[in-house]
């Protein structure tokens, strides 16, 4: 079963009914379902065709808040799958018992310099629907199809209007509709014609057998898509509910008939469904696929935030949501300059992966041949003495035989120089070296990660100090340098943290040496600044302290800029060589 991420809009505010949206109303032959003019919910402008007065998003949350909660949960686990880079495997190694969501919370208000050139917009849930509606209307002003067909076509082209237009006018239209799993609205539909000619009074009384439940129904109670496959309404309802609720399908539900891949349109879904909870879930799934398919949109990954960012072009740039969260538009992680999205992704995956550590354990530990206690080899000597005090048996690491016949020196093992023994030794060394290198970067990465998490605590203690200093003849404006210092500190830590993900994959060359110097420089400066803020702020030497702190954070800022500029220059001029392929 496929779990799809969904995004909830728990608080869709009502908005004025826009008369221009009138075009957008989907037409349904079924006169049983009238447009509900009073219903001015965004979704209904879009989904239309429901006379179910109970149904508006706001009513529905009163009706039963559970689905939104459930949707939120699934959104958090799927939209931000990588946010837990405090991997369990690392917890053991670096003693960090971290909890990622705390970090993203503490980092939300960070002022990261945003590129003025990179234009983007923050869309609230209702704005997202409005924007989707506009996109459809925009295309429809040219194509003049029904909105639901246009939406399906747009979805097929990942909401790239130009591509759709191009294919629509330049290509084989029949093929286009076939590929998008829509019945071409331009092809005379033989089935439709027969049914409409059948729709006489006499045929209305005729009974049809539903192929799903095997029950007899009059034509009024049968329903189907453009493809002509008809089933009874209760069966459709159950089918759609299973797809939406159990399988999380929205955009991609196809006709219930075997081998029919025609997609179910919004009109049919909204007309056939009755349960408002299912309807809302469907709408969320549709909005979600709109955002997720759209290259120029991304959900804000902050927990409990249901905004999305809409950019003018696709790029790895920092964006700031209205909730305050700053993240990379391209990958959704925290803004991670200087490391590139792809390398960061690889790094996070590596950190999440246990195998690195287990390989090392496999290569560096053996069981005592006598009592089976796991023994780690931590020196060059092969003369092993079991650490189990009750056992204390002595054996040879290489052949695992008892030590006694080996004599007093390790090289007496007659197997030691055999090829396979040598290979085993080399492999052990290699794996140990690789792991130590990894741990070097990882520990530093985690260390900054950990420190960043303490930001809130630091901010609180600094606030106290600021108040204290104000009581000692300093004005409010004069103590603001402390606030600035904390901000710079955190900004630098975030940069440093990601420099370790960058450096891990870097091959050594002259530029990587310069980079490492810059990194070391910034690291030392940052630790000094951190030390000042934690210890040396007292009201006694306020003026002197202020000077010292200001000098230090300015230096940090400057070093950070130098480091980043150098890495960016390297990207432009191809300085960087990597240890492995992406």
């Amino acid at each position, binding site marked *: 079963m496929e779990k799809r991420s969904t995004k909830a809009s728990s608080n869709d505010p009502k908005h004025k009914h826009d008369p221009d949206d009138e075009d957008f109303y989907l037409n349904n032959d079924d006169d049983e379902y009238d447009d509900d003019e009073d219903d001015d919910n965004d979704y209904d402008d879009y989904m239309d065709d429901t006379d179910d007065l109970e149904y508006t998003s706001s009513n529905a949350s009163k009706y039963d808040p559970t689905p939104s909660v459930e949707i939120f949960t699934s959104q958090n686990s799927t939209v931000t799958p990588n946010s837990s880079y405090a991997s369990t495997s690392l917890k053991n190694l670096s003693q960090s018992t971290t909890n990622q969501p705390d970090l993203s919370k503490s980092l939300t208000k960070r002022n990261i310099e945003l590129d003025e050139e990179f234009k983007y917009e923050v869309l609230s849930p209702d704005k997202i629907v409005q924007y989707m509606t506009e996109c459809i209307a925009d295309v429809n002003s040219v194509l003049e199809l029904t909105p639901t067909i246009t939406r399906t076509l747009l979805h097929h082209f990942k909401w790239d209007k130009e591509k759709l237009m191009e294919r629509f006018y330049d290509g084989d239209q029949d093929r286009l509709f076939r590929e998008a799993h829509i019945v071409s609205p331009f092809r005379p539909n033989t089935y439709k014609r027969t049914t409409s000619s059948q729709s006489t009074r006499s045929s209305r009384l005729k009974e049809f057998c539903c192929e799903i439940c*095997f029950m007899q129904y009059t034509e009024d109670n049968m329903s189907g898509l453009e493809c002509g496959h008809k089933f009874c309404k209760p069966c459709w309802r159950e*089918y759609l509910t299973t797809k939406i609720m159990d399988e999380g399908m929205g955009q991609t539900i196809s006709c*219930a008939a075997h081998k029919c891949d025609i997609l179910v349109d919004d009109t049919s879904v909204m007309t056939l469904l009755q349960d408002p909870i299912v309807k809302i879930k469907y709408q969320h799934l549709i909005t979600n696929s709109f955002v997720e398919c759209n290259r120029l949109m991304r959900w804000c990954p902050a927990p409990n935030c249901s905004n999305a960012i809409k950019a003018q072009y696709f790029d790895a740039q920092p964006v700031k949501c209205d909730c305050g969260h700053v993240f990379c538009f391209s990958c959704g992680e925290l803004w991670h300059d200087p490391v590139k999205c792809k390398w960061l992704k690889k790094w996070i995956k590596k950190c999440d992966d246990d195998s690195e550590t287990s390989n090392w354990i496999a290569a560096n530990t053996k069981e005592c041949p006598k009592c089976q206690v796991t023994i780690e080899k931590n020196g060059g000597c092969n003369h092993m003495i079991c650490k189990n005090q009750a056992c204390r048996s002595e054996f040879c690491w290489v052949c695992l035989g008892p030590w006694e016949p080996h004599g007093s020196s390790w090289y007496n093992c007659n197997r030691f120089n055999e090829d396979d023994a040598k290979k085993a030794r080399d492999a052990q060394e290699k794996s140990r070296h690789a792991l130590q290198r990894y741990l070097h970067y990882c520990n530093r990465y985690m260390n900054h990660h950990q420190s960043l998490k303490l930001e809130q605590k630091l901010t609180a203690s600094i606030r106290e100090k600021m108040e204290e200093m104000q009581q000692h003849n300093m004005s409010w404006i004069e103590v603001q340098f402390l606030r600035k210092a904390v901000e710079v500190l955190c900004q630098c830590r975030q940069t440093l943290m990601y420099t370790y993900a960058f450096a891990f994959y870097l091959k050594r060359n002259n530029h990587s040496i310069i980079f490492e110097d810059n990194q070391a420089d910034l690291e030392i400066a940052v630790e000094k600044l951190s030390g000042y803020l934690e210890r040396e702020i007292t009201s006694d030497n306020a003026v002197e302290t202020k000077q010292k702190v200001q000098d230090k954070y300015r230096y940090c800022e400057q070093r950070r800029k130098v480091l980043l500029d150098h890495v960016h220059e390297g990207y432009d001029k191809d300085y960087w060589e990597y240890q492995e392929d992406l």
Partner: protein
Amino acid sequence: MSNLLPTRILKETQRLMQEPVPGISATPDESNAKYFHVMILGPSESPYEGGAFKLELFLPEEYPMAPPKVRFMTKIYHPNIDKLGRICLDILKDKWSPALQIRTVLLSIQALLSAPNPDDPLDNQVANQWKVNEAEAIKTAKEWTKKYAIDSN
């Protein structure tokens, strides 16, 4: 859950008994009307010819919105059927449609015996053998049929 069987299942069962498909039999269990004892005869001109294969078929609570669960009870050498008798067939998974029936599912399984599909394997080892040396694979399938689906019955 009501003890009353849905009309659909009742009618399907009735039809299966009254108009059986050649080479296929499906009988509901005496104590559980949603559990069927199935027998499929190996199609002629296939390595399974002459064999009688036992299967079990169970209709889950969600049926017909969810597909029936089907499994071979008789050992069979086939690239799309694994050691446990599980069947790799699209209509039993994502291509399931509520308009399909027990009858159509069993017919599809019978067709799968006539046309093994080593490109969509469930048992990699068997599928590989099928690709590398089809003659040998067919020979093995015939041997297994003789050993498990003919003699033991």
